[in-house]
């Protein structure tokens, strides 16, 4: 049995990778299969160290590729065990085929994605095109703003994935380098408390129950395939509620609230920014500064990306004094309007029969820095839009023109 390392709430200087690895140690999964890839490598090194020193009971499979990492997780989950992995950018792309299999087979696998740009050109730095590229593969998707959120989200992800109403895999993204490799203050929970919070996995249709042999992954022809897809839609819809409930349970246990979205100074905001990931933190700083100058800017940070919290977003927008919206996309959708988040927000407006002026900012691709000045520049454009001036629909931030 693994020893108990953390006995009380502790504040530590941790990188995102360290925080994610620590969460994995405390979750103590049955099986971890993973392949190193920058900027996730360090995370797996930390975890491998836990294995090497008997700090987890995990069966660790250092596979020969990400494709095999996810394949082994599928096998392990179908065998009734709790399985986890982690990857980044091209690694997630290489897993892509098996992502849909994991969700289609309704296997509650949990994965950290250290968000990284996709090739070409090859680039090891942060952006969210990896997860955005995988967004229709039936995984629940959470994004973290900082290292502590990654830790908290990963712990919650276990409960979200394994709930009988969902039985869906969950990926939790954090921005590569900016979060994965930066040291920040992180609040860690006691080992026991995490163990109690995640509880025992509920086993369904285990391959290891040889007295009740089950078949996983059968062929579904035209007469049944759609029914299983419809089930997945249903599970994803229910996941919306499950994520909220788990967030409430987390608050009850540990005093920190997690919802589908986080709002910042939204109530009286004239201008609304919508951001995913670490840039939301920078945006908060800028908002404070803008407010000192009298510009009422507010923020909606998306934590749950799939299932998309359409109503939460619209409730937040409508609770504000919104005159125009700036959506921040750290991924491209070549050939579509704006980035992926832009499309989701547009759909959210449609659901409410509303139409706020809105523009999109493509930022931070391949790790391009997005600093205070760039966000101020974006807010200026949103203000112009609100004032009825003509502003391009899609804008690149911090681009060499």
């Amino acid at each position: 049995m693994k020893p108990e390392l953390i006995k009380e709430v502790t504040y530590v200087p941790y990188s995102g990778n360290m925080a994610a690895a620590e969460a994995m140690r405390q979750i103590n999964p049955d099986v971890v299969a993973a392949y190193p890839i920058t900027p996730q490598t360090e995370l797996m090194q930390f975890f491998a160290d836990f294995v090497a020193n008997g700090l987890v009971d995990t069966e660790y499979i250092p596979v020969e590729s990400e494709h095999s990492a996810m394949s082994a997780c599928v096998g392990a989950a179908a065998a009734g065990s709790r399985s986890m992995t982690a990857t980044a950018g091209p690694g997630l792309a290489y897993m892509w085929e098996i992502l849909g299999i994991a969700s289609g087979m309704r296997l509650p696998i949990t994965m950290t994605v250290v968000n990284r740009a996709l090739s070409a050109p090859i680039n090891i730095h942060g952006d969210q095109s990896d997860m955005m590229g995988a967004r229709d593969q039936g995984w629940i998707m959470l994004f973290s703003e900082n290292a502590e959120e990654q830790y908290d989200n990963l712990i919650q992800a276990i409960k979200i994935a394994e709930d009988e109403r969902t039985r869906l895999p969950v990926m939790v993204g954090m921005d590569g380098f900016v979060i994965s490799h930066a040291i920040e203050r992180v609040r860690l929970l006691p080992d026991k408390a995490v163990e109690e919070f995640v509880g025992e996995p509920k086993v369904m249709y285990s391959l290891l129950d040889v007295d009740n042999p089950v078949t996983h992954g059968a062929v579904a022809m035209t007469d049944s395939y759609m029914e299983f897809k419809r089930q997945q839609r249903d599970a994803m819809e229910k996941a919306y509620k499950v994520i909220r409930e788990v967030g409430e349970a987390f608050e009850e246990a540990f005093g920190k609230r997690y919802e589908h979205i986080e709002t910042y100074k939204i109530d009286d905001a004239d201008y609304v920014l919508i951001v995913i990931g670490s840039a939301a933190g920078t945006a908060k700083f800028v908002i404070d500064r803008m407010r000192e100058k009298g510009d009422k800017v507010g923020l909606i940070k998306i934590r749950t990306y799939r299932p998309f919290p359409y109503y939460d977003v619209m409730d937040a927008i409508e609770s504000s004094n919104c005159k125009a919206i700036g959506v921040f996309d750290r991924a491209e959708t070549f050939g579509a309007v704006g980035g992926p988040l832009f499309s989701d927000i547009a759909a959210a407006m449609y659901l409410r029969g509303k139409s706020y002026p809105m523009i999109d900012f493509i930022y931070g691709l391949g790790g391009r820095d997005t600093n205070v000045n760039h966000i101020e520049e974006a807010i200026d454009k949103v203000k112009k839009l609100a004032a009825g001036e003509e502003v391009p629909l899609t804008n690149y931030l911090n681009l060499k023109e």
Partner: protein
Amino acid sequence: MAQVNASEVKIPPLKKLTNYPEKLAPGHRLCAGCGASIIIRQMFMVANALGYELVIANATGCVEVCTTIYPYTAWRSPWIHNAFENAASTIAGVEAAYKALKRKGKLPTDKKIKFVALGGDGGTYDIGFQALSGALERGHDFIYVCYDNEAYMNTGIQRSSATPKYANTTTQPVGKCSLGKPQHKKWMPEVAAAHGIPYVAQVSPSHWKDFFEKFKKALLTEGPSYVNAFCVCPRGWRSKEEEGMTIAKLAVETNYWPLFEVENGKWRITHRPRNPKPVAEFLRKQGRFKHLFKPGNEDRIEEIQREVDKRWDWLNKMEELTNREE
């Protein structure tokens, strides 16, 4: 579990084996005369006799498609299909889960369970090669069984790296400028053996006693085993359904499909045809080689014969080399 001496474990006679339940139910939709289901049944015969439960990960392919068309399954053993190229990594995950759950006391300890990855030659020699190599190298406790019917039969007879030279396939068909596949078959069991795993065997269901002995050894082996099984495909080879086992026997008796094993690095030919027949006798039974029997192509058959002889010589040398008294 201590290593069991295989020679002390006896497989009862066929009659006795009929007393165990069939783990591959009838009603699957493999072609009439398919060699794959014979291979699977023989695997279960041995597992039954030795008291093992098999947990199977099946690569995409004929067997996977035909045995589990929703809402039917032919399997009476735990079975999973994940994708085409990952049977080995899938079973690695299952095996890891078994170890972890057993260690945590969450599984009954009285069961003898063996993990099997099952794939055709496409899922083994080609697209699944990386996952297989990785799983063999990591030393998972499992048996990889390849039912080698020498082409992608599930999708309509496309060439694979297991397809023999001059076989007619739909992706390298015979034509005015082509005599079929231009390359010889990959020596897959030899490649598997090069991983230094404890047990590798090549088998044919036609030689079922040899098959039984080898599958028994694979079951008793701790760590990875690789079993390459000759799998007739009447549809893909354009051969007569009823002649499946006859063709399999000819494959062995011509040395086209040598029966051998590699046990802890020692190579051993397990069946030596007394008077090996010319490979042409094996080829003649199959429509996929029909063009070779047209006048003018005699040297092509000789070329195949030379490849057969070369591999046979090589195996003999390996046997001699690895069994030499130091």
